[in-house]
């Protein structure tokens, strides 16, 4: 029984890691940048959702608006900032780490702005869904309607983005622009615009992650920092390029954490995450689904 409970909890938290990993993969695929600012973008979207819920008293109204805001924010960050960065800091030792530094800077910037507006105290952001586990006979499993909603939301996001990438013209353009920007441009694709759409998608996915996980904990300017770390580890395990890999990476990490929490103890989970990641990368240096050869990151 404990085994199944642990597994269910792992799937629920793994789903959240997957969402954050998806957001990171979406940006990586279109710009070859690991977007550390994703955590603060998601938090800002969640604050917007929080404000709307407080006024409309309806979580279901705030959810789509928060997602829309997340998409617009992602697009703006690319338009105002990342596009500019790509033209700068191209050479010298900093070129190697400029994208990392830039998005870390953005992470700090957005978090301090959020702190200046809303303060740093913890806010409660409830949903109408129950956080109490489903009951079967006398046994209550640690899996609530809220957890179910999290898993469903992840599945929907994955299906929507997977479908767009696989079956639409936009998806084809997104893939072409991320794999070979120059050839895509010569084939007539407006690469800069397509990249911008990639940032918007990522912003939306991050906003979903923030909106569904925050009700299970609290909201603060850096409440999603650890989610970012987990999402990043999940994305790296999955190979950074693969949406499916991101989801599998997230689930592996979520279930792994859940079992370690149950059987070893709470405080070592992230250290275990480090070892899981190192083992995966030593076997496959570019993750489960990354292209193993011929790609220079």
């Amino acid at each position, binding site marked *: 029984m404990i085994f199944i409970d642990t597994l269910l909890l792992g799937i629920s938290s793994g789903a959240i890691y997957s969402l954050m990993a998806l957001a990171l993969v979406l940006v990586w695929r279109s710009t070859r940048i690991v977007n550390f600012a994703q955590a603060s973008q998601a938090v800002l979207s969640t604050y917007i959702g929080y404000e709307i819920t407080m006024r409309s008293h309806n979580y279901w109204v705030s959810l789509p608006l928060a997602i829309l805001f997340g998409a617009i924010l992602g697009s703006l960050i690319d338009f105002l900032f990342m596009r500019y960065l790509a033209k700068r800091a191209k050479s010298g030792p900093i070129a190697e780490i400029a994208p990392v530094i830039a998005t870390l800077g953005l992470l700090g910037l957005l978090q301090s702005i959020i702190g200046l507006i809303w303060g740093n105290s913890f806010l409660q952001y409830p949903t109408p869904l129950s956080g109490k586990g489903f009951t079967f006979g006398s046994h209550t499993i640690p899996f609530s309607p809220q957890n179910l909603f999290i898993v469903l939301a992840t599945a929907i996001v994955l299906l929507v983005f997977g479908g767009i990438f696989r079956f639409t*013209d936009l998806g*084809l*353009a997104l*893939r*072409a622009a991320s*794999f*070979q920007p*120059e*050839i*895509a*441009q*010569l*084939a*007539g*694709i*407006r*690469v800069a615009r397509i990249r911008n759409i990639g940032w918007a998608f990522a912003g939306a996915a991050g906003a979903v992650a923030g909106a569904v996980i925050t009700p299970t904990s609290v909201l603060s300017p850096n409440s999603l920092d650890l989610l970012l770390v987990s999402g990043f580890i999940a994305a790296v395990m999955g190979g950074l390029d693969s949406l499916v890999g991101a989801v599998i990476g997230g689930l592996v990490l979520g279930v792994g954490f859940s079992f370690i929490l149950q059987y070893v103890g709470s405080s070592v989970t992230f250290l275990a995450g480090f070892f899981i990641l190192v083992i995966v990368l030593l076997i496959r240096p570019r993750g489960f689904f990354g*292209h193993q050869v011929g790609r220079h990151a």
Partner: protein
Amino acid sequence: MNQGLVISDLTIEYGAIRAIHDISFEVKPNELVAVIGANGAGKSTLLRALSGMIASASGGATWNGQSILKTKPEELVRRGIVHLAEGKSVIPELTVAENLALGGLRRRDKSDVATAISESLELFPILASRLEQRADSLSGGERQMLAIGRALVSRPKLLLLDEPSLGLAPLIIDQIFNALNHLRTHLGLSILLVEQNALSALKIADRGLVLNLGALVKNGLAAELLGDADLRDSYMGF
């Protein structure tokens, strides 16, 4: 009536280097012009400037009366100019079908896109049997065919081709040049063809240009160039 590609006093600077200086020539509608010359003569640079990949060009370059300099490559594709860069013009991570579809992404008339794709497959039947394979599983010749096929899906008027014969077996080269000949003769395309393989190129070309260290040293009928003894010695190696 299409006025073709008109280049007048074109100069291209590449950093501090003048890669092309003061060249003028024309490519008329329905004409295949071969550009030949040694390595480093500026042939590829010329194509890159014409397709908007290099912004530092001065002078005149017009297609059908409108300037094409300092225009983004993706805009030029809409205006009917497609550049197939040397060695890499297909996206290896995508399937053959997806690569072909790229050519039609920005076209409104989706039924004509379908027609164009089937025309490309008729021109290069080998591709039809590989539609679901990733492009990186193709041979060099098949990739070149896929690139040309994809270009045709965007219904171009002018093709800028950079070394389509590079690294290919003679038999395959013939196949590709025959296809180019077909595009010019039956579809009415203008083609500007940059080639190391001067002999094969001049055989199908209407006219030939010879570049040397960024300057245009000869501009004449292909047949005349083929008969020019000096040229044979310096550029054709036979």
